[in-house]
């Protein structure tokens, strides 16, 4: 009696159909023995292997379904019944499981809605894939700057020389507020002057008139809401309206309001370019990039080809007509579907934009959901011993492993389904708050089948992810061991659970560190010395140029109220000086330098109004007539000029003549509080700078005056000179505060997700701790009888978890450090990541963990040992 080669025998047993297996195996063994006797082991082995391999044919292979279940629906129903009873029996665990998952899913759904909203931005125009904005890269002092604005001459140029690329080319002003007057009624609406093709390009949904009707000399299209505001129920078509007191326009069409999630949202009036175009001609050359240029590509024209094709369109013209060639303008197209998410450029190439926030949020959402899934896995496997007997009995009365796996899957699906129902409720409740934080108006898309489909799919995926490990683990028990009572989950069974806890807390600690750093960075920027005083500075935007005609009288009257200490007008708000100019020359300037300064026109008392601090020289003075050709520059500009003593130096500003530097002020944070201060020049209004337009009247309120009272006295004075405009007030401190909105938003979201992540992690830890405590009840009882003190027991029960949390803290360091260092590099003015941040995060995490565990461990430690030991 000889044994054939085991590996082939096992292989044969594995593939052969069960009804023939024993007979054929008998034949094979019989033949093997015979060969062995006659021809020796080697030949017999060979023959055996050969025979087995030749048996591997379709008629001999077992079918893939070993078992033919006959009663699937009833079985599945039974799975859910059993699952439901299990949930009810262990209410505590069920609440932790479902609650954790529901919170995780709610976070994921909210983030999903947010991302959906962002991604669907600008997708509502029929031709959005073919619309693009013409951008330009210009080189200033070796730095490439990317502008979205263009000279008005570019439109005709693209239309005539590059018409093979484009269906439409539109030059338009940037959207701004315009006053529309009809029959003594004036409303202010946002809109643009644009060339007529804009209506076709945006495929405006016309209520009355046609898209072509913007072609006329003075045509105007109104949105439905603008028309209603101005005309009520009257028919607006062919009515003459007055625009900004300067132009007449005829309403030729009404279009449906544009949707909220597009770049043209709130654009309620489109005015014919013919109204302003001719008047602009003389003073706007190729060097004045004041307008936007939009194009619609021809069908079948590749965007990158067109983008490359128009690259030198501006360069070719400025070489002959202007001096802008030294900035090496290179044009390119920025497609509409990237406007929203990929809008930042660094040195002329894409540098992300909002897409970074989307990635970050998706990552956070995925992590929070993962934490909830881990809870589910841990609690299910931790309770495995309780269900081991069930598994054993099921297996011994004939359950296949695959059936047990599907049973446990159906239980996790049940939990995921319940959780998703709760999560929808949570989302509904949290939406108002979420909208406020994220600055959006999201709502659950109840009526969208897409939404429901993804919700169900999402619940199923969550159920599968969190159910896989428990299903495979629980169904692997051997019935003999389980039923004999010798089953004990060994050390190995705890290891995956510990790893999962470490993953959870690593994510949580990393989130804490990130949140702390984001909040610290915001705080740091808020505390940055800004170089001037924004407290009590109120400004009133000038909506009508007539105000400046009476400026001196207005100023006197304002001062006479006693509520105002000082008054000054300026080109832009002090917290938002974004006008830049080039074309400056000075003694000792490197001729290759392509300079750029922030320039702000002001009136004499501007410095006193905002309280700037003179570093050298003097402020503007009404008594010195020559100050009309004087500059006050900031420290950054003084450094930029590269001259030791700038006072008294002369600068030449293009065709605007010579200017003398009379003073240097301390650097002021007037742009981004995170960036270094740009070189700035302040100058007075004079006939040399005829084009300067004051947009703000700034007032320093008397510190003793009540703000509300002061405003009440100021308003009538403005009303007197601009009776049609409702007086608006801008508080400089609020405007400055708005610079932090974006960061604060991220900080808030990070904080909330961190809190939720910790909450979910602790929920899981709480479940595990209570499970471990209940398992060790007897041990604790005996220890107590033998004299263990309560602190000792507490330590015993808490130690394991605390060690895991410490490991997580250590692991989280490289992740958070790397990630946050990367985030901070986008700011010039930033904090360093210090060890204190980590100390705070670790301490906080440890405290929360200890609190969570101690509740359970102390309860167990305090129990009367008699109760514990008598229970059997």
């Amino acid at each position, binding site marked *: 009696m000889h044994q054939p080669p085991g590996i082939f025998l096992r292989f044969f047993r594995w593939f052969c159909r069960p009804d023939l297996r024993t*007979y054929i195996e008998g*034949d094979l*063994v*019989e033949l093997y023995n015979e060969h062995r006797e006659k021809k020796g082991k080697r030949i017999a082995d060979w023959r055996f292997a050969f025979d087995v391999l030749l*048996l591997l044919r379709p008629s*001999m292979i077992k079918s893939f379904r070993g078992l033919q279940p006959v009663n699937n629906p009833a079985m599945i129903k039974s799975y859910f019944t059993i699952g439901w009873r299990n949930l009810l029996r262990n209410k505590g665990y069920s609440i932790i499981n479902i609650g954790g998952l529901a919170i995780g899913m709610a976070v994921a759904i909210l983030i999903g809605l947010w991302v959906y909203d962002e991604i669907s931005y600008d997708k509502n125009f029929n031709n959005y894939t073919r619309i693009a904005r013409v951008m330009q890269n210009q080189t200033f002092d070796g730095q490439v700057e990317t502008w979205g604005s263009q000279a008005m001459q570019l439109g005709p140029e693209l239309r005539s020389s590059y018409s093979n690329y484009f269906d439409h080319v539109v030059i338009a002003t940037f959207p701004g507020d315009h006053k529309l007057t009809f029959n003594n009624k004036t409303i202010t609406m946002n809109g643009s002057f644009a060339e007529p093709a804009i209506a076709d390009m945006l495929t405006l949904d016309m209520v009355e008139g046609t898209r072509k009707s913007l072609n006329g000399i003075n045509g105007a299209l109104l949105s439905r809401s603008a028309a209603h505001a101005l005309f009520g129920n009257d028919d607006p078509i062919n009515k003459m309206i007055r625009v900004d007191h300067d132009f007449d326009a005829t309403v030729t069409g009404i279009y449906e309001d544009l949707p909220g999630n597009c770049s043209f949202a709130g654009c309620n009036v489109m005015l014919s370019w013919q109204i302003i175009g001719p008047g602009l001609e003389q003073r706007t050359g190729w060097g004045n990039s004041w307008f936007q240029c939009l194009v619609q590509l021809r069908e079948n024209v590749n965007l990158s080809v067109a983008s490359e094709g128009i690259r030198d369109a501006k360069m070719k013209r400025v070489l002959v007509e202007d001096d802008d060639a030294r900035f090496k303008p290179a044009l390119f197209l920025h497609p509409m579907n990237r406007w929203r998410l990929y809008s930042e450029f660094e040195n002329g190439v894409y540098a992300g934009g909002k897409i970074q926030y989307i990635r970050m949020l998706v990552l956070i959402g995925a992590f929070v959901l993962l934490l909830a899934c881990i809870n589910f896995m841990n609690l299910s496997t931790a309770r495995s011993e309780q269900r081991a007997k069930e598994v054993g009995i099921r297996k011994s009365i004939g359950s296949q492993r695959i059936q047990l796996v599907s049973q446990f899957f159906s239980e996790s699906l049940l939990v995921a389904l319940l959780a998703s129902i709760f999560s929808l409720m949570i989302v509904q409740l949290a939406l108002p708050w979420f909208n406020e934080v994220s600055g959006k108006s999201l709502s659950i898309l109840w009526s969208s089948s897409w939404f429901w489909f993804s919700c169900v799919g999402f619940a199923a995926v969550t159920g599968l992810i969190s159910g896989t490990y428990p299903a495979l683990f629980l169904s692997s028990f051997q019935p003999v061991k389980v039923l004999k009572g010798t089953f004990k989950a060994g050390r190995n069974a705890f290891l995956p659970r510990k790893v999962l806890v470490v993953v959870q807390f690593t994510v949580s600690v990393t989130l804490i560190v990130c949140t702390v750093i984001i909040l610290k960075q915001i705080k740091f920027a808020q505390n940055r010395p800004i170089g001037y005083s924004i407290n009590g500075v109120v400004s009133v935007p000038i909506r009508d140029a007539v105000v400046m005609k009476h400026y001196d009288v207005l100023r006197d009257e304002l001062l006479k109220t006693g509520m105002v200490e000082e008054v000054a007008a300026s080109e832009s708000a002090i917290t938002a000086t974004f006008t830049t100019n080039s074309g400056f020359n000075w003694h000792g300037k490197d001729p290759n330098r392509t300079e750029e300064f922030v320039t702000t026109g002001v009136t004499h008392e501007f410095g006193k109004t905002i309280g700037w601090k003179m570093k050298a020289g003097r402020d503007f003075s009404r008594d010195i007539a020559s100050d009309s050709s004087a500059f006050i520059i900031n420290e950054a500009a003084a450094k930029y000029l590269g001259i030791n003593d700038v006072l008294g130096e002369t600068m030449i500003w293009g065709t605007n003549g010579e200017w003398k530097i009379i003073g240097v002020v301390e650097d002021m944070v007037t742009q981004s509080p995170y960036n270094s201060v740009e070189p700035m020049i302040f100058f007075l209004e004079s006939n040399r700078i005829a084009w300067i337009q004051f947009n703000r009247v700034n007032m320093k309120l008397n510190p003793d005056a009540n703000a509300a009272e002061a405003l009440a006295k100021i308003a009538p004075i403005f009303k007197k000179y601009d009776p049609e405009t409702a007086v608006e007030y801008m508080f400089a401190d609020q405007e400055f505060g708005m610079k932090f909105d974006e960061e604060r938003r991220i900080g808030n979201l990070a904080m909330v997700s961190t809190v939720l992540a910790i909450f979910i992690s602790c929920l899981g830890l709480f479940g595990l701790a209570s499970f471990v405590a209940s398992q060790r009840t007897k041990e604790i009882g005996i220890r107590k009888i033998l004299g263990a003190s309560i602190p000792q027991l507490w330590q015993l029960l808490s130690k394991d978890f605390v060690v895991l949390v410490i490991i997580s803290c250590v692991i989280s360091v490289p992740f958070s450090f790397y990630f946050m260092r990367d985030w901070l590099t986008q700011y010039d003015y930033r904090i360093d990541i210090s060890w204190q941040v980590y100390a705070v995060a670790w301490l906080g995490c440890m405290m929360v963990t200890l609190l969570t565990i101690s509740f359970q461990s102390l309860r167990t430690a305090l129990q009367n040992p008699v109760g514990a030991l008598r229970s059997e």
Partner: protein
Amino acid sequence: MKKYQLGGFEEVVMLTVGILYNDAYGVSVKKEIEQRLTRKVSVGALQSALKRLEDKGYLKSHEGEATQERAGRPKRYFVITALGKRSLEHTRNTRENLWKAIPEIALNPRFTD
């Protein structure tokens, strides 16, 4: 004549099962064929032929004794069914009819000078 489908090897197996009568199981059938036809037969080919014939209803099987040299595995004995018998007869008749239809000259060509 789809009714009695019987391949060449299947016919050999059927006939051998008939020869062995009451003692036809995997190994004995294999040996008998190898001996009478002086050719090799693999276990796989034989077993799948047997299974096919049983599925067609030409053979039936029953479990036999388990012996030591088979490591305790039972034998599976095969016998010819009535249907099997008819199919064998049918095949044989067809053959004979074909034989008869061959003209004498085709097999025994005679040469005349």
